[in-house]
Structure formats: C-alpha cells, structure tokens
C-alpha cells in the first residue's frame, strides 16, 4: 500500500465523517458554478442584464468564495479534532509529522477534487432547470443551455485554490498537542466555565443601546447611525455570546427550584458548555445571517416597490411633444401601428396643454381641457365631470399634492388671456403618472380653453401630451423601441441635436426594474440559502466532533434510567439553543435594522416593507425548523448507533 493509497482509503472509509463536509462543499461549488453559468451566459451579457445585476452577481460570487473559505476552514478544524485519536495512533506508530501533514494535504485535496467535479457535474445538470427558474422569476426570454469554458474555468480555478489554501493550513490545527493528548481524544476544554461579568453586561448594554437608537431613529440622524450601529451591533453580539449568555445561564443554574427539574439540569449545563465552546462560531453565524436577512429583506422590498409601479404609472404609453417637433405625427402613427400590429387594445387621448401666467402666484400655470380628461377618464371607467364657464379645478401632480389642494379655493387671473377663473378643489381621478402635466396645472371647460387659445395665439401651447391607456400594459415593452433609441442617442450626443419630444414606456421600464430586482433577489436568496445551509452544517460538524463524548454520556444516562422520550427532550433542549439562538439574535437584529430602514423607505417611496419582511423572516423560520429536525434526526441516530 503506497502512501497515497493510504490517504485515499482513509477518505473512502471515513466517508461517514466526511459526508456532511463533502455535501456542503459540493453545494457551494454547485451554487458558485450556477452563478458563473448565469454570469457568462451569452444572451445575458448583451441583452437584458442590467449592469447592477451583473455587479450583484459578481459580488455574490466573491461573498460566496470568502464564506466558503471560512466555512471549510472551520469544518476542517472540527474534523481534524474529531480524528485526533486516529492521528495519535499514527504518530505513535512512528509516522513523522511531515508525513502526517502530507496525509492530510492529500486527503483534503482528494476531497476537494471530488467535490469540485461533483459540484460542477450536478450544477451543469441542473443549469437548464436553474435557467428555467430564473426565466420564470425574472420573466425573460428562454435562456438556452450553452457550453463555454469560462464558467468551468472560473469555478475550478476558484475552488482549487481554495482547497489548496485549506489543505495547506489544515495540519496546523493538529500541530500543537502531544501524542498522549491526541490519543485521549477530545482536547481538553478549558476556560469553558470562565466568563467576565462586566463584559457580559457590557455586551448586552451595547445591544440595547443599538436597539434603542435604531427604534428612535429620525431622518436627520440616520446617516450618522448608519456608521455607528453596525460596529455597536457587531461588538455587542460578540460579547453577548462569549459572556452575556454564560452569565445568564449561570444565574439560572443557581435557581435550584428551576434547575433541578426534569431534564433542565442536563440540558442547561450542556448548553452552557456548547454555547461557550462555539461562541465565536455562533457570532459569525449570527452576523452572516443578519446580513442575509437584511439583503433579502431589502431586495424583497425593492420588488414590492416594483409591484406598486402600476399605481404610480396608470398610463400604458406616454408621448410628450413640444412645439416644433418634426417627428410628432410620424411617431404617433408609428406607435399606433405597432400597437395594432401586436394586437394590443389601447385608448389614446391627445391633450393640448397651454401655459399662462397666473396673476395670483405669478407662476406659470398649465391648462388642460376637461373634455380631454373626461375622455381619458371614461377609458378608465370613471364618470365624466362637468364644469361651468369661469370655473376650474386643480390637477394635482401627486397624491400628496392632492391632499394639500383638496380644500383650496383660489381666484386667479390668467395674464396673457385676461381671463378670470375660480379654482375650486381638485380633479378627483388619478389618471397620470406624477408630474405628468406640470407641477401647477388646472382644468377648465372647453369654452374657456378655446378662449385662451384665441386670446393668446400660438405661443400659449406648452406641449401636446399623448396618453395611451392600455390595459395590458406589461405587453408594451416592444413598442416604440426605435423612439426610445432616438432619445438615448440624443442623450449620448448631449445638446448637439436636442429632441423636441419625450417618450415613456412604463411597460418597458417596469420589465427592466422587475428583472433587475428579481434577479438580485434571486441571487440574494441563493446566497442566503448557502449561508443558511452552512450555518446548520457548522452546528452539525461541532456535534459530530463531540460525538464520542456524547455517546458516552448517552450510555450513562441510559443506565441511570432515562427513557427514549426523555432523551429526545434533552437533545431538543440542547440543539434548540444552538440552532435558534444565533438565528433568533440575528432575527431581532434584522427587525431593528428594518425599523430604522423603514424611515429611509418612508422618505424615498412612501411604501411599507412590513409584508415582505414578514414573509422573508417567516420563510427562513420554516426552513430553519425543517433543518433542525433533519439534523436532530441524524444526530440521534448517530448517538444511538453502536460504537463504530
């Protein structure tokens, strides 16, 4: 048997130990590969993918890489600890340290190769399916499966270097420790019972301070808090796990009334050890899941922003033509023919918008005809309104404007046409996107409108506004593309040939926004999925490391006369804190973070993110509970298994 064969057989025969590690690595490789497949997809590169999503994907890859590095690093350490007895035997048999390092190096690399190949293979098999999900979520044209060396090269390169780093560093973990310590199995857990009272109180007060600040945040203080809160929370969380929790649990321990009841004694004292041993790991898991919660929550709320898009943009297409626009009729003809060609029902109304000086405010005021508005309103199914001569209504530019103007009565005189008007209240229906017809707009009846036109001749025309009411507004994304590119071209050329029109296609914009956000959300969710899987696996590895110790303990308890049900309850009470403490803390962190984010959100878009957030947090909770049962099942069956 050569040395390499020995290493190979080690891995193969330790496969139960390595299985969880292997699976987690395969999963990271797979997700990484799927991202790369999407990142390098030929039809994504040149067509639909906004820069922001491809940037997001790139960042996701980097985060995934770094996280996988940490993850493998920690799990590797746990495994080597679990196998320390075996290494002790090898050293006792006369293996040189250098050889032992080589053994571990070869084993890790073997495992690395295997997981890279498996991960890419599974990833490639699922990539069509993955593309279909992306397509369904993002609503893009079919993504064909493609074959290119790039995603393969990126994935293999990234993970090969990653495993090389890990397998180079890994032996360091067993360098310390004498042979007898190794043989003895689990390394001594010293300082498990030490904690500092002051640091414990310090940690919890940091957290409380941060929470209070996050709750009472105002628009003015949010920027400074943005820089203050993350470090506060980070340090607070760290001390919370290393000192505050032990402090609380030790206090509980002194309450014999409570502590000496049922299985609490075993489970709490076991939790003390576990929480202390794994405090740093819990800290990492907490911070990572907080970030994951928050990014998913933010992305989900962006998606909700998109879904409120229609409310803000009730019109299907908008064409705004300023005087001296040579393209006006050509463009309108083009739009109508394209709509007809694609069989999209529409209702177009042409608004002539006049502009006059108001004697009341000295501001420019835009004037539209009620008849035109009525025509558009009828297409939305609203009733037409009546207006007497000499009377007018405000046409509010936005919802907040509407509430301000609703009770306002104004007498005004239009300077150019010498016309006096009574403006009473607002036009009640919201038919336009915000600021569509100008900030200061009134509605008059057709007689007054015609008089203004007569009195002030041509100069009074501000612009002509074509409003297309289209029920199937999401289907218009291919309408007027050439007009769009004309606008784009003029932006690129800046002022050399300014266009005398504006064209807006909410259907197209919406599909862009939606695509970007849902793609980002999808990336975020996948990333959160990896974090989530990994944090669960951390716990599992730690459990695995202490398995021999736990088995002994189980045997003792069995002899004392513990029933199976009681044992399960004890396992529950041991596992639940490990699973749900980091998760619960990050949950609370996120809730407070979103509390303060809501302030920004209110300022930006007047939308609420409560619904999305509840969904996100609920989703994670369900997954976590599922994962908890899965791992509990594995753990109990390992514990009960006859010594292997």
């Amino acid at each position: 048997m050569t040395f390499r064969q020995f290493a190979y057989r080690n891995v193969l025969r330790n496969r139960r130990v390595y299985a969880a590690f292997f699976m987690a690595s395969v999963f990271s490789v797979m997700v990484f590969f799927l991202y790369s497949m999407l990142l390098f997809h030929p039809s994504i590169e040149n067509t639909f993918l906004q820069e922001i999503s491809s940037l997001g994907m790139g960042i996701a890859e980097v985060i995934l890489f770094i996280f996988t590095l940490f993850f493998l690093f920690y799990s590797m350490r746990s495994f080597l600890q679990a196998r320390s007895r075996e290494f002790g035997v090898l050293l006792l048999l006369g293996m040189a340290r250098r050889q032992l390092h080589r053994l571990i190096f070869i084993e890790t690399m073997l495992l690395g190769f295997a997981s890279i190949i498996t991960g890419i293979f599974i990833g490639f098999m699922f990539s069509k399916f993955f593309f279909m999900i992306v397509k369904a979520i993002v609503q893009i044209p079919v993504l064909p499966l493609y074959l290119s060396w790039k995603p393969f090269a990126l994935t293999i390169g990234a993970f090969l270097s990653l495993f090389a780093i890990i397998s180079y560093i890994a032996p360091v973990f067993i360098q310390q420790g004498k042979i007898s310590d190794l043989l003895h199995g689990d390394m001594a857990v010293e300082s498990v019972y030490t904690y500092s009272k002051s640091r414990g109180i310090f940690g919890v007060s940091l957290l409380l301070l941060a929470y209070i600040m996050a709750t009472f945040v105002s628009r003015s203080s949010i920027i400074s808090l943005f820089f203050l809160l993350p470090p506060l929370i980070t340090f607070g969380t760290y001390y919370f796990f290393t000192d505050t929790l032990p402090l609380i649990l030790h206090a509980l321990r002194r309450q014999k009334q409570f502590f000496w009841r049922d299985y609490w004694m075993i489970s709490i004292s076991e939790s003390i050890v576990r929480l202390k041993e794994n405090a740093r790991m819990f800290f990492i898991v907490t911070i990572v899941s907080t970030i994951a919660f928050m990014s998913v929550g933010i992305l989900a709320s962006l998606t909700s922003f998109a879904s409120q898009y229609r409310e803000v943009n009730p019109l299907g297409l908008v064409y705004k033509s300023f005087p001296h626009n040579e393209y006006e009729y050509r463009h309108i003809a083009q739009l109508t023919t394209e709509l007809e060609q694609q069989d999209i029902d529409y209702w177009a109304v042409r608004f002539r918008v006049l502009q006059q000086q108001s004697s009341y405010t000295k501001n420019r005021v835009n004037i539209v005809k009620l008849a035109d508005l009525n025509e558009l309103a009828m297409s939305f199914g609203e009733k037409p309104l009546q207006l007497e001569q000499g009377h007018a209504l405000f046409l509010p530019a936005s919802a907040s404007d509407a509430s301000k103007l609703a009770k306002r009565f104004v007498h005004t005189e239009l300077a150019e046409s010498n016309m006096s008007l009574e403006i009473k209240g607002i036009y009640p229906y919201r038919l336009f996107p915000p600021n569509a017809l100008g900030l200061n707009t009134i509605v008059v009846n057709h007689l007054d409108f015609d008089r203004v036109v007569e009195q002030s001749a041509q100069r009074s025309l501000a612009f002509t506004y074509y409003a297309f009411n289209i029920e199937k507004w999401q289907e218009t994304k291919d309408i007027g593309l050439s007009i769009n590119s004309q606008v784009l071209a003029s932006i690129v050329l800046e002022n050399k040939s300014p266009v005398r029109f504006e064209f807006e296609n909410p259907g197209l914009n919406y599909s862009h926004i939606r695509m970007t956000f849902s793609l980002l959300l999808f990336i975020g969710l996948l990333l959160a999925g990896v974090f989530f899987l990994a944090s669960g696996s951390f716990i599992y590895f730690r459990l695995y490391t202490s398995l021999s110790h736990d088995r002994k303990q189980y045997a003792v308890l069995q002899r004392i006369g513990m029933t199976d049900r009681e044992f399960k309850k004890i396992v529950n009470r041991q596992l639940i804190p490990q699973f749900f403490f980091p998760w619960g803390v990050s949950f609370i962190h996120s809730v407070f973070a979103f509390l303060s984010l809501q302030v920004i959100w209110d300022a930006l878009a007047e939308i609420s993110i409560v619904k999305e957030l509840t969904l996100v947090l609920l989703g994670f909770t369900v997954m976590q509970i599922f994962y908890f049962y899965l791992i509990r099942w594995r753990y109990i069956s390992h514990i009960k298994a006859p010594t292997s």
Partner: protein
Amino acid sequence: MNSQMKKPIVKMEDVTKIYEGKVMHRALTQLDFDVQEGEFVAIMGPSGSGKTTLLNLLMATDIPTYGKIVIGGVEPETLSQNEIALFRRRQIGFVFQEINLLQMLTVEENLVLPLTLDGLPIEEMKDRVQDMAKKLHLEEILERRPDELSGGQAQRTAIGRALIHQPTIVLADEPTGNLDSKSAKDVLELLEHINLHERTTIIMVTHDPIAASYCDRVLFIKDGEFFNEIYKDERRQTFFQRILNVLSLLGGNVNDFSTVRLP
C-alpha cells in the same frame, strides 16, 4: 446458610446468552443462581468469561436467549423500553470502572441527577443530597466539577449517585479498577458499610481478589459457565486466601489440562 430465610432478590434460571452475528458466540451457558436480599456478591472470572454479558443482562440492556431473569420480582424481558428505563431509574444503581460522572455538572448536581428525572420535590432532593454527602464525606466538594476531583472522590460521587434513589440493587463493574490502593480501600469499605447498614443488595463484578474479599459470597464463572462459589468466613484474610486458591484453579494452565481431557 443464614440467608436461607430471606427471599431472593435476583433469580437467574438457566440463563443462556448467544450472540448471533457473523461469528456465533455463546457468552453464557445455563447460568443458574440467586442473590438474596441484602447480600453483597462478587462475580469473578477471567477475561471473556461472560461477566460483562451477565452485567448487561442484570441491568436489562440485553435479554437472555434462553432462561429467565427475575429482579426484584420483575422480569425485565417482559417490560417495554420505557418501563425498562423507569425500572432502572427506580430499582437499580450503577457504579462503573470508568467513573462516568457528567462532566458539565457539579458533584452536587451529579448526585441529584437521578432524582430530578423523577421530579421529586426540591426540599426532599436537597435533604437527600445532604444525607448522602455526609455519608460519603462529600460535603466539602459539592460545588466542584468532576475534573477537579481525585479518583477516589469521583468514585465516591458515582456511588452516591447510584444510591441516592435508594435502589433495591446496586450493580458495580470493577468499581476499584482505576483507583490507587488507598482509594480502592476507601471505596470498598464504603460499599461494605452501605451493605451492612442500609441493607442494600450489591452485585459487583471484579478481577481483584482483594475487592472480592469484602463480599459475602464470591461467584466464579468461566467461559460462560458456573464454576464455583465460596462464602465469607470469619476473617477477611483467610477468605482472601481461599479466593486466590479458586482463582489459581480457574485461570491459567490448570484449566488447559482440564480442557484437554475428553468427556
């Protein structure tokens, strides 16, 4: 002898245990003996004689292939998993060679552990811990953790844990195996004391003839079969000598000759 009038607390009738696996192995063959209430019995035999199997059967982690075991009037074989656990919790106390205290609990908590499972009132638990601590001289170290104890202290704690629920029978597996001679002596005297004053039945499996000499009766088994039994006499010294005599017959070359002989 003088235990004739007492009722047997453990009855083994023709107990045979066969392990079936890739290699079939007969661990016990028609073992048949009683243990009287309040008796202190040692079971001796060379390695592989079936002592561990016997102990496993007694603590109901295993069931006999043939034969019948009755412990305190109950046949463990007929109980459900749950009932067996309760049976162990209430009827049996265990002391092991590997001391097996729960590392994360203090001495006091280790002592009280079996009681908490049964949900006794807290005051009674405290009383019993105090009693036990006094009896076993553990008062000073109640707050310590197992890794801060000497071997003897740890084993005393383990004995305390085995006794605190006032079991009908205590099973001990090499309780002195890991101890120095002074601690071993302490532990054995403690067991003897408990047996005398609390009338607790103790069955102890051991290799050590000195340990066995503290008992009322020593039962020898060999290759899973009953070999011999001897009773205590006036002086421990002579009892010890007699145990050694039986052992010299039991182990080593003497038996090699006997197995050569054909039936």
